[in-house]
């Protein structure tokens, strides 16, 4: 597979390490009420769709960026890739 790195262009997927569902960005607040339930969902009940999936890849043999890649799990087609940091910052800005 080839991953369209937003900074570096097409890179072989072999350079990356896969983590999983991009929902892992949304770490719950560990001091909040209901944290155990929230963490259980966060860690164990991730998305596993047959189709479009947003997922985390780490450019370990490259620039060490974490990317969010939007990929179809039925066809492996990649629709989009973005820097996880940008997405996380945007999400935090939105949340405030």
């Amino acid at each position, binding site marked *: *597979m*080839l991953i369209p790195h937003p900074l570096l262009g097409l890179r072989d997927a072999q350079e990356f390490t896969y983590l999983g569902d991009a929902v892992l960005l949304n*770490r719950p607040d560990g001091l909040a009420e209901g944290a155990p339930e929230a963490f259980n969902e966060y860690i164990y009940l991730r998305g596993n769709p047959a189709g479009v999936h947003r997922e985390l890849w780490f450019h370990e043999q490259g620039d060490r960026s*974490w990317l969010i890649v939007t990929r179809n799990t039925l066809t492996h087609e990649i629709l989009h890739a973005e820097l996880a940091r940008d997405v996380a910052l945007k999400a935090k800005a939105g949340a405030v």
Partner: protein
Amino acid sequence: MRLSGGVIDRSKPLQFSFDGRSYSGYAGDTLASALLANDVRLVGRSFKYHRPRGVFSAGSEEPNALVELRSGARKEPNTRATMVELFEGLEATSQNRWPSLKFDALAINDLFSDFLTAGFYYKTFMWPKAFWEKLYEPIIRRAAGLGSLSMQADPDVYDKGFLHADLLVIGGGAAGLMAALGAARAGADVILADEGSELGGRLLAETDTLDGKSAADWLRSLEGELAQLPNLKVMRRTTVFGAFDHGIYGAVERVSDHLPVPGNRPRQTLWRVTARRSILAGGAIERHIPFRDNDRPGIMQSSALRAFANRWAVSPASRVAIFTNNDSGHCAARDLLAKGVEIAAVVDSRGDAPQQGDFRVIRGAMVTGSKGRHGLASIEVSRPGGSEWISCGALGVSGGWNPNVHLISHHRGRPVWDAELHAFVPGPDLPKGMTVAGAAKGEGSLHAALRSGAEAAMASLQQLGLRPEALRLPEVEVREENLQPLWHVPGKGRAWVDFQNDVTVKDIKLAYQENMRPVEHLKRWTTLGMATDQGKTSNVTALAVMAELTGKSIPQTGTTIFRPPYTPISLAVLGGGDTGTNFRPRRLTPSHQWAKTKGAVFVEVGQWLRAQYFPQPGEAHWRQTVDREVLATRRGVGICDVTTLGKVDVQGADAAEFLDRLYCNPMKSLKVGMVRYGLMLREDGHAFDDGTCARLAENHYVVTSTTAQAGPVYRHMEFARQCLWPELDVQLISTTDAWAQFSVAGPNARRLLQRVVDDADLSNEAFPFMACANLTVCGGLRARLFRISFCGELGYEVAVPARYGNALMARLMELGVDLGAVVYGTEALGVMRIEKGHAAGNELNGQTTAQMLGMGRMVSSKKDAIGAVMSRRPGLQLETRVLVGLRPLDPAEPVVAGSHLFAEGAVQKTENDQGWISSAAFSPHMASAIGLAFLTNGGDRMGEVIIAANPLQGQQVAMRVVPTVFVDPEGERLRG
């Protein structure tokens, strides 16, 4: 027999041998053509019945003519004689027969074929139970299999390469050539790959003229033009074996398989080709028409007969017949006749078959039987009203063509049925970027193939955003096939569908009868399509037979898709060059060279090679060496290269906050110039890794991880930084390879270090336990010093830029002679950390928790650190096994890691299991073996005697439960 003409080089005769007999052929021959030229028709035996078999095809789909090529370590089983280019001295041996090809003892199976029908083995061999492994299976295994391996390492060299192109054209026949030419002329970067040694495909096997020129002349001038195009790379002897994601194709180039030995080139090269578009022009495979006893040597594809005659100037016999349901069989007869071969008859199932040459055509007829023990002698021809036997030494059969849809289904797209062509053709669901052209698409006649190749080029260029130039097609004769389907000849007897695996029409009928009707059941029950051709010569025919039985149409009955590779490829080329000790990279520590000169014994630690111990003259056993290293360290000072520990530089205004969230224990309160032990949890609450966190400056930390987890810890830290807390001002960089780090420990450690550091006060007051500093050593070399200890002695770790590591090691040892300095390796390191009760990899195995490690209280409940919440789940909180120390009651008894723990007198079974010994060593300090173990309620059981059971090695040892720290439990040495 050898005919006239052909594209062989008669000026270059070549000697070769088959089953020990010498023969000769010519340059340009394949092993198959050369054998046929020497009238060798019997070349192999079938898998199950050991039936005599001859060459069936002229291509890579060959199911019968498999041989062991070469000898010794280069022996290559199951090699298709049709794809082997003849070279001087070639050695081939028939396989799957004993004692000889002609007299094969297992041919007796054929007599029992009525018992050995599809699936028979599922129904028997069950009694007595023990006989399967002892008797039945060994016999079956010896009888099964095809060729044999040499059991020696392959002496040849293999390579791996990467190619990028706008367009990959797969197949260099008429369609592929037009496609490559059209695309390359328009400026696209094109790779044209063909599995054969020559471009041309079927053009080489037939007798068409193009623009009035012979195919050979036309090809010559075209190749001349191709050679002029710098943006076109032609790869002969290159099989594109798989279509993978995002335009990546796997290809194997057989660089030197046509040579006696590879010389200094690789034998084969694995290419990973990335192409924006591809054109599949892989041609078609002629299908057979099963009839009774249709598997005798001499019976082959009509197209193969034609290819052997035209390209290689050979015929398997002087008198041949053709059995066909379309016009192409007649072309074969015409070509053979022109070469002086006698045509016994063309048997055509069509009532209205044409008369295309001066030979006998038997219309509305079928071949219904054959005779000839080791080769065809005669065929029975039947038609309404009667039958006759016709003598012939070879029979070419043409049942039409199956487009070669292999690669189109690698992304699980299915071919679709074309009712006019009576064939499966590529459907709309192709690998992305692929276009199909020529016979692979069902456009098999020359004019159609040329046109569709050109069209595919135009379409691909458009997709690439390039402007196509008009491409003039050569003028050729327009011909049609006029096929009337005939899938098999009805009647009694055995008619083979899958030659290699001996699957007959009868077997398919039996599968139907036993309700193994879905195509996958049919395949798996009968083994149809599972031979080395993967069903290329059999699947469609079998579907047609099953369709006839079920009364459904062929596409309703099923389709067939293929999996990579297109043709079998050697494991050696897939394994590339990274074999032996090059299998994985090897990382060396900065003091490796020094250690080597000191005679160190090295050990694999993940990717690293580390010094394990340093034997001295007179030491007979490694334990002697390790004991010396340990005692000398505890008595004087020991030095160890600990560079392999992961190191991460953490900087930024929010570094403290970041680290506080990363470690389960508090980090924010760490003062500048101090170090703290840190435990990281995974988010699921289990212990992840431990190490030290040193605050070198207000906003500058260095953290360490274990050697094994250096990569995962860094990845985890980057995840936390980029994905969880991007708002924090913190930067990370891995500096594991940048700094050489040495542990200097022992009562004399301070005195030794004082001799290398520049103007620094190392006194206990100025530089206490857990202090750290940036400083210089050896007259200005920047260094970092940490007062930490893994072994329990007064200890430091000193780090210098990696390139000075070797020199610093030498310097420390030189300067420490009078202080009793000793170098120690990982073995002594391990002993001393067990003596001190420190957890390492065996304890931090991913299954343990802070609580189990005796650090439960370190997990702060006041902050939201990674893993804190989940560490409070009941399953983790109620876990009672904790780390303890163990000592055998009898110091002479061993302590063995991996032993399980039981209460004295308890029955030793899973239910009573109370834990396990995670680490063990002989402690010279204690003069006894000692261990660290996880024991149920261990904290409350100090002094209790338990049993360490190692039934695997027949050991039972009584142990006393003791605290984990065997050396200096008060920590006075550390702080002194």
